[in-house]
C-alpha cells in the first residue's frame, strides 16, 4: 500500500475577496421540530442536535410547535421589551466602541448579531440563577436589567466601576444579577458552572447555573471537563455553546465545527442537546424557557448550541477584513436578530417603522446620558488616579504581612 495520508485543514466560509459560502450549514425550515417532553432522553435528542429549533419563518411569521409552546411568553408586550433590550445592547456596543476609538477606554468587545441570545435567555431566568458568561455575553446583563451606569462604569475602569478597574473592560461581575466574574482565560468557567449547579442541587436552593462558551473555546480542555462532570452528576446546568462561526481569525472548523454539530458533541457524553436559531428571538425565548424548566425540574443537564454569527470584529484590537470577506455578515443565512424581530412585530401590527426609529433614538439617548455621567468620573484620556494600594486589597480576605510590607513600599 502506498502512503496517501495527508493532513486536512478546515476552510472558512470566505477570505477577503472571496464570495462567502455557508453551504456547510444546512438550515432547516422554521417550525418543523416538535416540542419534546422536558424529560427528553439523550436517545430522543438526535433530531434536536442535528436540526435547528426555529420559530420565525422567512417572512417574519411565528410558526410551528415552538411558537405555540411560547404562549403568553410570546406576547407583543414581551417581544417589544425584547426588541428594546436588543436595541439597548446595540446602542451600548456602539457608544462604547466609539469611546474606545476615542481613547477613553483601552478595549471593548461588541456582541453585534448575537444580541438575541443573551437578551432572551436572561428574561427566562429567575433570581438566584447564575450565568458563567464569556466576554461576549453582556446581553445577559441587559436582559437582567443590570444598571447601565455599572455596565458602563466597568468599561471605563473609573470610580463608577464596581470592579475598581481591576478587570479588562467587558469582564463584568455581579452576583446580584446572576453574572459570575468573567475570566479572560477561555473555557475555565464552563466547569465552574457545573460546580455551581451541583451546589444548587446539594443546598436545595432551587437555582440553576448556565455555562457559556464560544464555538472556538469548545476546543479548550474545560469544555470536556464540564460536559463530562455534568453527564456524571446530572446537576441543574445549562451548557450553552454560542456558535458564531469565528474565533478571532479561525473559522469554526478549527474547533471541529462543520463535521458534527456542537450539539452532537453533547450527545457523545450522553447529554440531551438541542440546536437553536440564535438570531430568532422567539426561538431563543422558547428554547430557553424549555431548557430552564427542564434543568430546574431536576431532569439533568442540557446543552444548547446557539447558531449565530459574529457580525462585528472580534474585539477593538481586531480587524476582520484581513481574514474574511466584508460581505460575510450579509451572506449569513440566519439574518439579523433585530431586523427579524422587528419584521415579526410589524407583521403582527404590534410595531411600526416609526416606533422603531423612535425607540432606537430613545435608547441611544439613554445610553448617552448615562455614559456622559460615567465619563465625568474619569476616562483613559482624563484619568483620575486611584490609590495604588487598592491593587493589594482583596488578594486575600485579610491582608497578610508581606502585602502590608509591599503597601509600605508603595508609600501609601
Amino acid at each position: 500500500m502506498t502512503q496517501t495520508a495527508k493532513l486536512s485543514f478546515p476552510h472558512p466560509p470566505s477570505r477577503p475577496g472571496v464570495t462567502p459560502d455557508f453551504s456547510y450549514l444546512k438550515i432547516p425550515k422554521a417550525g418543523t421540530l416538535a416540542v419534546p417532553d422536558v424529560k427528553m432522553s439523550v436517545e430522543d435528542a438526535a433530531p434536536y442536535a442535528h436540526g435547528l429549533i426555529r420559530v420565525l419563518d422567512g417572512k417574519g411569521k411565528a410558526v410551528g410547535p415552538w411558537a405555540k409552546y411560547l404562549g403568553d411568553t410570546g406576547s407583543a408586550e414581551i417581544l417589544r421589551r425584547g426588541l428594546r433590550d436588543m436595541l439597548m445592547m446595540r446602542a451600548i456596543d456602539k457608544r462604547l466602541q466609539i469611546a474606545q476609538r476615542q481613547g477613553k477606554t483601552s478595549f471593548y468587545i461588541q456582541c453585534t448579531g448575537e444580541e438575541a441570545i443573551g437578551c432572551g435567555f436572561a428574561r427566562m431566568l429567575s433570581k438566584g440563577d447564575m450565568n458563567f458568561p464569556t466576554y461576549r455575553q453582556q446581553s445577559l446583563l441587559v436582559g437582567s436589567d443590570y444598571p447601565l451606569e455599572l455596565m458602563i462604569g466597568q468599561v471605563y475602569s473609573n470610580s463608577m466601576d464596581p470592579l475598581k478597574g481591576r478587570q479588562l473592560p467587558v469582564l463584568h461581575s455581579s452576583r446580584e444579577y446572576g453574572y459570575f466574574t468573567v475570566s479572560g482565560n477561555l473555557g475555565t468557567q464552563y466547569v465552574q458552572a457545573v460546580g455551581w449547579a451541583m451546589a444548587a442541587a446539594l443546598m436545595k436552593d432551587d437555582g440553576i447555573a448556565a455555562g457559556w462558551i464560544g464555538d472556538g473555546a469548545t476546543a479548550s480542555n474545560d469544555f470536556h471537563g464540564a460536559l463530562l462532570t455534568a453527564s456524571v452528576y446530572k446537576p441543574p446546568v445549562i451548557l450553552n455553546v454560542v456558535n458564531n462561526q469565528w474565533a478571532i481569525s479561525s473559522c469554526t472548523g478549527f474547533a471541529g465545527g462543520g463535521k458534527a454539530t456542537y450539539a452532537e458533541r453533547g450527545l457523545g457524553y450522553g447529554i440531551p442537546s438541542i440546536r437553536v436559531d440564535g438570531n430568532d428571538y422567539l426561538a431563543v425565548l422558547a428554547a430557553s424557557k424549555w431548557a430552564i424548566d427542564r434543568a430546574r425540574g431536576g431532569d439533568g443537564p442540557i446543552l444548547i448550541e446557539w447558531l449565530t454569527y459574529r457580525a462585528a470584529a472580534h474585539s477593538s484590537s481586531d480587524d476582520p477584513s484581513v481574514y474574511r470577506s466584508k460581505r460575510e455578515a450579509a451572506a449569513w443565512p440566519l439574518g439579523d436578530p433585530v431586523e427579524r424581530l422587528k419584521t415579526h412585530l410589524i407583521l403582527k401590527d404590534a410595531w411600526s417603522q416609526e416606533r422603531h426609529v423612535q425607540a432606537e433614538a430613545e435608547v441611544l439617548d439613554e445610553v448617552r446620558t448615562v455614559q456622559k455621567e460615567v465619563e465625568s468620573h474619569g476616562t483613559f484620556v482624563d484619568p483620575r488616579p486611584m490609590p495604588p494600594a487598592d491593587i493589594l486589597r482583596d488578594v486575600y480576605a485579610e491582608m497578610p504581612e508581606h502585602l502590608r510590607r509591599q503597601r509600605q513600599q508603595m508609600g501609601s
Partner: protein
Amino acid sequence: MPSMTMIEAIRSAMDIMLERDNRTVIYGEDVGYFGGVFRCTAGLQEKYGQERVFDTPINESAIVGMAIGMAAHGMRPCVEMQFADYMFPAFDQISQEAARIRHRSNGDFTCPIVIRMPTGGGIFGGQTHSQSPEALFTHVAGLKVVQPSNPYDAKGLLISAMEDTDPVIFLEPKRLYNGPFGGDHSGQAIGWKQHPKGKAPAGHYRVPLGKANISRPGNDVTVLAYGTMVHVAEAAVKACGIDAEIIDLRTLLPLDLETIVTSVKKTGRCVVLHEATRTSGFGAELIAEVQEACFYHLEAPIVRVTGWDAPYPHAQEWDYFPGPERVTKALQQTLEA
C-alpha cells in the same frame, strides 16, 4: 489525647468539618467508596453519604473547577489530588481562577476551597509520584500554601484551612503518612505512636495558618524546613551534635518571616532544606528574604540542601533525596564558613 498517624489526623479534621459545617463536601479520585489511595477519607462516605463525600472522574482540572463553582455559591469543598504530580492539569484553574476570584470580583465572589495533595518522595514512586511542587504555588498571589510535618499540626492546620475563606493548597508529605522519617530508609520506620506529635485532641482545634514552629531551639545555625525535611534536619542535628535551631515553617504562604528573622539574627547562619528541585525552589525565596532582612547578622552564606535538578528517579531515589548526610555537611560547612 489519642494517638494518630498523619493519615488519621487528616481524616479526623475532615470528619469534624463534615460534622460541624454542612457546607463541607469532600471529593476526588477514589476518595468516596474506597476512601482514597492513601486511605485519608476512609469511612467518610459511609458516615456522611454520597452527597457529602464522593468519587470523581479522572480530571483534576474539573475537580478544581467544580470546587470553584461550589465555593462561589457558598459551599466549602475540600478536594484531593491523588498525587501532587497530578495537579498540573489543574494548575490553570488553581492559579488563574481560584486564586483570583475574590480580587477580580472585588469581593463579590469568594473561593474558600482546600486542595489536598500528597507530596514528596520516599515510596519509590518515580518521577510522577514523588514531586514537590510547592514553589509553583507560592508564586501565585491569592493562594495560601501549607505543609504540615506531623499529625498534631496536620489536623489543626487542615481545620484552619477548611475554615479559611481563601483557597488553600494543603501539601501532605506522603513519606510521613505512617510515621516520622529522619532519612534512614534502610532502618525500620518508626510509627507516630512513639512521637510526641503523634497525639492530637479527638475534637476540634486549630493550628493557625501563617505561623511557623520552632521544632528545636538552638543557637548556632538556623535550619528552615517543612514536611519530611523537618525530621531529616532533626535526625541530622541529633547525630552530629550541632546546636541548630530548626524552624518548621508549616505555612509557606503567607510566610512567618518574623520567626525566621528573629532566629537568624540570633544564630547568624542559615541552612534551607527542601526536597523539590533546587533551581527556583521555595528555598530561593527563603534565602532572598533572609539575606535581605538579616544581611548584617549573617556570618556565612546561606546554603540550600535540595533535590537535584532532575526528574525524581525510581531506582536511585535515595541518591536523589536530600538525606541527613547532605544536611550535616551543609551545617558543618555553614558553621566553618
